[in-house]
């Protein structure tokens, strides 16, 4: 989402605030923010890792190497590996259309992109069950052609795509709008074709925004629980993703194993955060290096 924008304006606001706010207010605000982080983020994260290693490293490795856990890991990676490229294509198309063209329904498209943010993931999952389930609208057709969607891998992939599709589009629309279309026009007049213009001019300008979107999209795709839980049917070793596998283990009172598998997801989250920070820094540098790019051409 527009997280990096918030982070950057926040940074400026804090710097300006330093001149005006009294010390006590500053200390209090920082203490509250840090305390909150500690209580709700650091503590749980630490618990995950402590619990995961509660019975020693051997037990930890056993839990991870267990066939069902590995199957869940594979499925999670597969779902993300399909969902992220699909959303990349969709995001670039939608971003391009919204940032570059005027067309009827543009406002609607912009709003619809946010839909997965607005509806509960459980409902997103239900939609696919209602569509492709036995009593669903497309159910009979799907059954006739011997395609399994609900309670099978395709359903999981569909649900994952659905919940993670806003991230890339949301991220590149503002970047493309800020970059404007003048460089693309310049490329065209200089003789570049459509693809040359995209790969040599557009893509380098949006690449950091795009990468940022991919990271967020990937994080969501791997972590999704609600929607996937509805369509998966939770068949061990077949339709279980990592988050679902954690839940099953937990319900079976296999706490140590549940936390061990959780630690994989937590580790993934930490890697995502690190990559995100690096990308943000590069984006900031790229934005600073391009002064006055936001001036759109006015027909006169």
């Amino acid at each position: 989402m527009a997280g990096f924008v918030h982070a950057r304006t926040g940074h400026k606001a804090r710097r300006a605030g330093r001149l005006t706010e009294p010390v006590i207010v500053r200390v209090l605000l920082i203490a509250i923010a840090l305390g909150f982080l500690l209580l709700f983020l650091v503590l749980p994260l630490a618990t995950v890792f402590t619990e995961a290693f509660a019975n020693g490293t051997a037990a930890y490795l056993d839990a991870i190497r267990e066939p069902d856990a590995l199957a869940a890991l594979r499925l999670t990676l597969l779902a993300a590996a399909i969902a992220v490229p699909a959303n990349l294509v969709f995001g670039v198309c939608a971003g391009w259309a919204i940032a570059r063209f005027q067309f009827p329904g543009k406002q609607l498209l912009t709003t619809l992109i946010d839909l997965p943010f607005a509806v509960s993931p459980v409902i997103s999952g239900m939609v696919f069950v209602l569509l492709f389930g036995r009593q669903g609208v497309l159910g009979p057709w799907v059954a006739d052609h011997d395609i399994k969607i609900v309670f099978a891998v395709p359903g999981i992939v569909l649900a994952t795509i659905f919940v993670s599709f806003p991230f890339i589009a949301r991220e590149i629309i503002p970047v493309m709008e800020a970059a404007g279309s003048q460089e693309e026009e310049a490329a065209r007049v200089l003789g570049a074709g459509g693809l040359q213009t995209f790969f040599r001019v557009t893509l380098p300008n949006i690449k950091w925004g795009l990468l940022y979107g991919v990271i967020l999209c990937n994080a969501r795709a791997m972590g999704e629980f609600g929607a996937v839980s509805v369509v998966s049917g939770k068949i061990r070793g077949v339709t279980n993703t990592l988050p679902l596998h954690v839940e099953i283990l937990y319900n079976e009172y296999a706490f140590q194993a549940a936390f061990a598998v959780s630690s994989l997801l937590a580790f993934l989250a930490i890697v995502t955060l690190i990559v995100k920070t690096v990308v943000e820094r590069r984006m900031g540098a790229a934005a600073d290096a391009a002064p006055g790019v936001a001036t759109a051409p006015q027909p006169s």
Partner: protein
Amino acid sequence: MSIEVSHLTKRFGAFCALDNVSFTVKQGELLALLGPSGGGKTTLLRIIAGLERPDGGSVLFDGDDAIRRDPRDRGVGFVFQHYALFRHMTVFENVAFGLRVRPRAQRPAEAEIRRRVNELLSLVQLDYLGSRYPSQLSGGQRQRVALARALAVEPKVLLLDEPFGALDAKVRQELRRWLRRLHAEIHLTSVFVTHDQEEALELANRVVIINEGRIEQDGTPEEVVEHPATPFVVNFLGQVNIFHGRVQEGKALLGPLALEFPEHPHTEARTAAGYSRPHELGVSRTDDGGGLWATVTDVRVSGAVVKMEVVDEERRPIQVELGREQYETIRAIVGERVYVKPRKVRVFMDTPP
């Protein structure tokens, strides 16, 4: 290459950007499209480049229809108002872009590309900046990179959109002189858009003045200055004093001025206005006819000229500009009465409703 624009029309929704515009640019000419902003000049330039589609009319390059051709096949070089340099490429790569994107068969070898880019960079006097990025350059330098980039593809026409609009006055002067020299050297058919009349008159061989999507006048700088075709042109090309009144039976009665006006010998009166530039007014102490008495309210010496403001009997201000020596012979000071006589008045009848 010559360009022939005929009957071009372009609307943006209800707004009419161009209304039946026709003119031609001859081979090797440096033509200025001059007019106030929002008048349709940039749209016109973008249509010639192929970045915009007209609703009607035609654009011919050397007699061939250009409208249906893609911008990449038109052989135009375009310099954007805000330069539109590729910000993630070095100056060198910016200039090389047009050569690198050519189809393999027409693409010059790497050594040839290097040679041509370096040649262009020295033409725009920036050969020492090839490895910099656009964000590290000043406005004037960016402008010259944009020009070198446009010239790299060896265009047959060079189009420039407000080429000096975003630069400060001194840099603008310099670049203007430089562009004129460059044009004299390479003799490329060029069209530039500007809202600065001084720039247009100083730089161009021919000026097309556009207002509200229509051509007001098309002529050489002397023609538009000496023989403006419409009141708009008179107003746009500099400060002018306006005397309102009417014309009847071969006479123009414009407030305190009475002039011969043989263009309208009829008995019915028409409203009209006379236009006279500050430097076209003479000042004396005696009534020698054809002028009006006025009171001096302000005198300012600015360099070689003296700027005077006088007011007529009805206290309407009139601006007068005298040469320094001319002023010395009169030495009128504030509060004195002087006789102001226009050497030249252009009378335009109002268009009948």
